[in-house]
């Protein structure tokens, strides 16, 4: 192939809310991080590494959100992840004994033992407990473009009633990125792809070139983009927007015939945490005795409404390879058709939650690996590209304002604003206004002053309260208690501190204690709200 007719751009959005409880080890929610490390982040890194070793040139873009970066960098969580792995290794060793009479399961027990053992090795010995360095390496060698996100994944379309809070989300997102990657991010994943034109000026102010929007963010833009989602557009303020391709995302996401539903793939919901004898599994489930996922799963999806058959690693790989081929052929055909239509070679943007790959779709990282190899080796009319590279290559784009939109159900704000969670917003708005008020009441406090520390902690509490995750969880109906508690805690701590500051009665002990828990963004400067 001499010249590519188009491009495919994968964007994986890696995000988890900041969950850090030094005061207790009983918060199961903390395990989201450990599960994501073992099932998504390490598998992605290992597959990138394999591609690098095999000298396969590829491109991928990932947003590593500020809360995730803060957690990956957190010593306590690193320590607890190691403990998590050791417990899993212990369980796998017991599993080897328990399953010794069934060869097929026993093979899987061995597989999990190897896998968790290898995770421990990779985490401790290869990455020195710091996965951020792992991702940074691939950015430095030019195959991975890392972009940032709003500071705590605050949903702009609802926060922007107090515009400074949107500005602060962007500012802290950019600052966190700079801290870990030593340069400015060119792109930002808008939390939940929530686009509002009002944020453009702040995005520009902090040097952001491009954003990712849901398909109708482009399709409903004004004026209508003449190339649809197959070319980026630039807003009047100068922010470039790439829109999600409908075709390719459907192939992966569709619950009916999407790739992750293949019958040979691992069944997420059959886990020994639920299946195994209670007394046997008790030490490995929740400390309150509730059955939870352990990550050790022996079954494949098998089919609908039927008995589940055991998982077979080779069959799963075969399916992943077949599907990678299907995706590859579909993109080839799509680009062949499109390349006659667009002025520049079309770009097919494929954004996904990173945690889909590996955590939900266990075989996802392998699928990516196979796909990237195919694109590199096979006869192909397209290339992988990052949005930045595309902009540099094809800087001429239509001027148009993207449509206010999100990637949540129905495309607007219903997920984060509905009758289950609408009680939250007035608290977020008031706290936002109060933070701005505080910054104006006490600007430029001395570096060492207690009040400055309190003001900075207020900023942390506000940001943490703003995570779109809590609203999402409430809507979704799972782990609702925890999400509601987090909103109460952060609004509560913020409000208490607010009065302590304005009454000039800051309780240093209280401040110290909540700073231990809500220790995100150690370098934050509350003056971003000024």
């Amino acid at each position: 192939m001499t010249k590519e007719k188009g491009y495919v751009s994968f964007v994986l959005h890696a995000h988890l809310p900041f969950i850090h409880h030094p005061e207790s080890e009983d918060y199961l929610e903390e395990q989201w991080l450990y599960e994501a490390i073992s099932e998504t982040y390490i598998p992605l890194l290992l597959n990138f590494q394999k591609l690098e070793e095999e000298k396969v040139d590829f491109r991928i873009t990932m947003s590593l959100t500020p809360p995730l970066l803060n957690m990956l960098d957190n010593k306590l969580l690193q320590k607890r992840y190691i403990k998590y792995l050791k417990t899993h290794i212990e369980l796998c060793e017991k599993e080897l004994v328990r399953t010794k009479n069934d060869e097929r399961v026993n093979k899987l027990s061995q597989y999990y033992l190897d896998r968790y053992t290898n995770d421990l090795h990779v985490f401790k010995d290869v990455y020195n407990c710091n996965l951020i360095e792992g991702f940074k390496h691939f950015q430095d060698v030019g195959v991975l473009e890392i972009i940032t996100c709003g500071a705590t994944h605050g949903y702009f379309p609802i926060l922007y009633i107090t515009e400074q809070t949107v500005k602060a989300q962007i500012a802290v997102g950019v600052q966190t990125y700079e801290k870990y990657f030593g340069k400015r991010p060119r792109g930002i994943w808008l939390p939940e792809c929530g686009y509002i034109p009002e944020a453009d000026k702040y995005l520009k102010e902090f040097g952001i070139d491009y954003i990712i929007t849901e398909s109708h963010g482009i399709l409903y833009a004004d004026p209508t983009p003449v190339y649809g989602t197959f070319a980026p557009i630039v807003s009047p303020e100068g922010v470039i927007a790439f829109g999600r391709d409908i075709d390719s995302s459907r192939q992966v996401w569709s619950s009916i015939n999407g790739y992750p539903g293949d019958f040979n793939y691992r069944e997420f919901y059959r886990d020994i945490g639920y299946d195994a004898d209670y007394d046997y599994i008790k030490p490995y489930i929740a400390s309150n005795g509730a059955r939870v996922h352990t990550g050790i799963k022996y079954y494949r999806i098998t089919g609908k409404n039927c008995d589940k058959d055991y998982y077979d690693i080779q069959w799963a790989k075969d399916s992943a390879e077949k599907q990678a081929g299907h995706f590859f052929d579909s993109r080839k055909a799509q680009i062949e058709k499109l390349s006659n239509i667009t002025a520049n070679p079309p770009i097919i943007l494929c954004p996904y939650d990173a945690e889909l790959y590996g955590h939900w779709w266990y075989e996802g990282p392998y699928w990516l690996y196979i796909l990237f190899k195919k694109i590199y080796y096979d006869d192909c009319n397209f290339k992988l590209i990052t949005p930045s590279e595309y902009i540099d290559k094809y800087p001429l784009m239509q001027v148009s304002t993207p449509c206010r939109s999100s990637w949540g159900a129905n495309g607007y704000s219903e997920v984060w604003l509905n009758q289950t969670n609408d009680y939250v917003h007035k608290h977020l708005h008031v706290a936002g206004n109060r933070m701005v008020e505080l910054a104006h009441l006490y600007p430029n406090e001395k570096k060492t002053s207690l009040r400055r520390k309190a003001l900075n902690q207020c900023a942390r509490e506000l940001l943490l309260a703003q995570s779109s995750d809590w609203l999402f969880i409430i809507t979704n109906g799972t782990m609702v208690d925890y999400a509601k508690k987090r909103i109460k805690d952060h609004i509560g701590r913020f409000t208490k501190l607010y009065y302590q500051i304005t009454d000039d009665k800051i309780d240093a002990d209280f401040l110290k204690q909540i700073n231990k828990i809500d220790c995100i963004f150690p370098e934050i400067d509350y003056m971003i709200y000024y």
Partner: protein
Amino acid sequence: MPRKSKDELKELNNEILVKDKSKSNSKSKSKKATSKTNKVSSKSEKAITKKGTSNSTSIQVPKSKKTSSRKNVAKKKTATAKKGITLSNVEYYDLPYRYNETVVKILAQTPTMLFIYWDISDADRKAYIDKYGEDFFNSTKPVLKVTNRTMNYSFEIDINDFANSWYLHVNDADCDYAVELGRRPIYSNSNIDNYIYVSTSNDMEMPNSHILFDKLGRSVFFKNVKTNYIEEKEISSLSFIRNLGKVYDIYELYKELYDGEINIEELDKENMRLNLSSSNSSTFK
């Protein structure tokens, strides 16, 4: 809700709620106006108050197309019991009941659904009572004046003092709205003015809900983001514009992705019509 033991509660409840002095005295006076209730009687003709109707069914519990799965790490039970290992004080917070501010805020839930919340501060309440008499809040009812600033029209809906937030359907997406909270006398022979203004909301531009083929002018602008050079391209001179329909020939897929969308039928009709007209239009050849 993760509840603490009673003892803990007693001890901790003081933390926030009492902090705001104004709050405590507000409670007695304002009990009527604040509690959000489901009893919203939407008697007003067109008022299309979503809240009243959608309580049980239509709260479109989002199917969460994509973000869905992220955290419903299924069936896990929350273990929120704190041991207080490092924290000496156990904390417990409740959200402040209200903030004692006169405020109206509006948010866009969808292109045609506004979410409105409001409150009247104790001081303002007192001022109204001082001016209009002790019975002011019983002899008047709250109303919301909704103004579409883009299309320059407004309409009014009756609400009631049992609600402090409302979902309101508006007809025109992609427009700028503001909502004013006011009060009107319940009885016509009242000695109170016909309309008493209370507060105005923020402005809110509702999202656009469809492809804007009809707004596409004769030319579009392209910008070179490296050089900032802007060039105008006549739509009619662009050969690709004939392919616009092909580029946008994705509605079937779109419908599948967004099959919950309320006005998809309408959108679809409009889209087909526009598609048709654009492919027939001479300017596009």
